[in-house]
């Protein structure tokens, strides 16, 4: 379970401080998929970066399975599997070597790394490129490698920043099934997206973010009821206040 409360983060720029996140709070349950929906630049990535301890919030707190993300950062990172916005797969290493490297950094032994890699290769359909160097991988192959790398240590909590970005339809479908499988295993899954249909189809709890603030949150049915719109996409647009930066 992941609890965020009243997160604030501002960045210094030449024209003065810009508030990227100004009051984001939600709770993500185990065995459920929580989706962060918002246009590009709404503050989703910054929120997630504070969640996986890469950034320190100016205000507010993050608790992962009851642990404070800043007092106990290492233990929190140990229980997280993170797919950042930047995939950053090592080009001169094979997909398997990329995964093994992260397994070792998580302190796993070689047998466990091999076992988990084999499982992920099967689940994500990576068999035909697992031992190829990732130079020249397609966007889908890179994303799959990065996801496998993030999940090799079987984390209880899975955080994915725009997981389907740049993927073709078939890969996206496969990935959605994979995410539902993670949910079925009782994991706490958080993903961010600017695609309304994706969030609507996958998520049990939806957090709508615009301009650094949560404008609405709840289950798909709850959101429809809150906004008084029968169509979920109309509900999103109403919650955000504009269609800009969203994708159906």
């Amino acid at each position, binding site marked *: 379970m992941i609890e965020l409360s009243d997160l604030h983060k501002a960045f210094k720029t030449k024209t003065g401080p810009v508030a990227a996140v100004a009051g984001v709070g939600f709770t993500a349950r185990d065995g459920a998929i929580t989706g962060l929906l918002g246009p590009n630049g709404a503050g989703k990535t910054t929120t997630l*970066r504070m969640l996986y301890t890469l950034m320190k919030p100016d205000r507010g707190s993050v608790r992962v399975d009851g642990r404070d993300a800043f007092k106990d950062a290492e233990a929190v990172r140990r229980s997280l599997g993170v797919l950042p916005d930047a*995939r950053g797969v090592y080009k001169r290493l094979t997909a398997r*070597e990329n995964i093994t490297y*992260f397994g*070792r950094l998580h302190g796993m032994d070689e047998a466990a790394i091999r076992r988990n890699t084999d499982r992920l290769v099967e689940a994500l359909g990576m068999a035909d490129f697992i031992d190829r160097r990732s130079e020249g991988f397609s966007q889908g192959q890179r994303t799959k490698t990065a996801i496998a790398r993030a999940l090799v240590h079987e984390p209880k909590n899975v955080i994915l920043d725009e997981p389907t970005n740049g993927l073709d339809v078939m890969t996206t479908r496969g990935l959605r099934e994979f995410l539902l499988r993670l949910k079925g295993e009782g994991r706490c899954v958080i993903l961010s997206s600017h695609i309304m249909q994706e969030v609507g189809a996958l998520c049990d709890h939806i957090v709508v973010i615009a301009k650094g603030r949560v404008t609405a949150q709840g289950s798909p049915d709850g959101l429809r009821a809150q906004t008084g719109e029968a169509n979920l996409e109309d509900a999103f647009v109403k919650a955000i206040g504009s269609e800009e930066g969203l994708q159906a």
Partner: protein
Amino acid sequence: MKAFKTVWTVMLKELVEIFRDRKIIINGLLLSPLIFPVLILGIGALAETRARTQLESELKLPVIGADIAPNLVAFLATQNITAESAPADPEALIRTQEEDVILRIADDFATDWRESRAATVEILHDSSRQDSRIPVQRVERALAAYSQQAGAVRLLARGIDPSLGMAVRITHRDLATPEARRGMLLAFLPYLLILTAFIGGAYLVMDATAGERERQSLEPLLATPASRGAIMSGKIAAACVFGMVGLLLTLLSFKLSFGFVDRGPFAGVDVSLFAVAKLLVILLPMVLIGTTLLTLISASVKTLKEAQSYMAFLMLLPILPTIVLLVSPVKNQLWMFATPFLAQNQLILMVLRQEAITLQQWAVYLGAGFGLGALLWLIAARLYHREQLAISA
């Protein structure tokens, strides 16, 4: 224990990555070892041949007013210096570097000579030109010998012992070892060795920090539970290993090249295994200082390009002591062994000149060298903890 495992894991991964890039291996590891044979065998032979031909071959010397002093011209001929006819504008010829040296015999030379006054000859040359040094010296020596000979004859003719005119007789006893005299010609070698040690691991360091950041792989890496200090140390360790391999290859080529030279200024330089081992110990702190300094720079810049822009400046650092010593030479003092670059420079020269290095000098040197490396490591580790480091976009 856990930290050590992270350091080891990161180091192995960085080394695997770099050794898969063939061009970098060739440029980074093999180029510098290849420079030494070229420099030592090629340039050494060139310098020697040049010095020998300039010293021993016939020197053609344009002489203005040769007909005024036929005896002097005849004497010069016995010294293998052949007088040539006088050019119209001697100053211009020296300035345009068409002639190295021109001799002008003064118009009143014959009159002065007959009346036993000091007769004037003038040597025209450009003292800022390196390659005219030897011809000018030859002309000077020949003229001095002629002057002394004629002077002695004059004194004898007057019934005076010529040695009366010499109140003090100056003789030299050069106590420099042959190794030390060669050492003067070796002034550029420390620079090459220090440079190899200092920036040998540069590519790997910059790629592992600034490059990873640019390729956006630092963010997922720093989201793992591995500590940032250990990750950075692994990268530094990999660069040190890479730098050491380059350094070993360079020293090996250094030893082999000098082993082949049997004449010329570089013949017989001490490249025994013991001397090479000492050079390796001297350069070890330099490898650490170089990699930590570059890590520090790479962690504080935004892009790989920005990190690379520091290279030109860094390449100048090792040559600074050589320049300072050239302008104001000083005797070895203990503080020098605690000054980076200067210390390496002096110690390498001491090894090549087969001078003893005291225990105290070793202690000060290694203490200061590794101390500076540790300090830079700490600063780099602090920079590695900055929030902006992981955020690339």
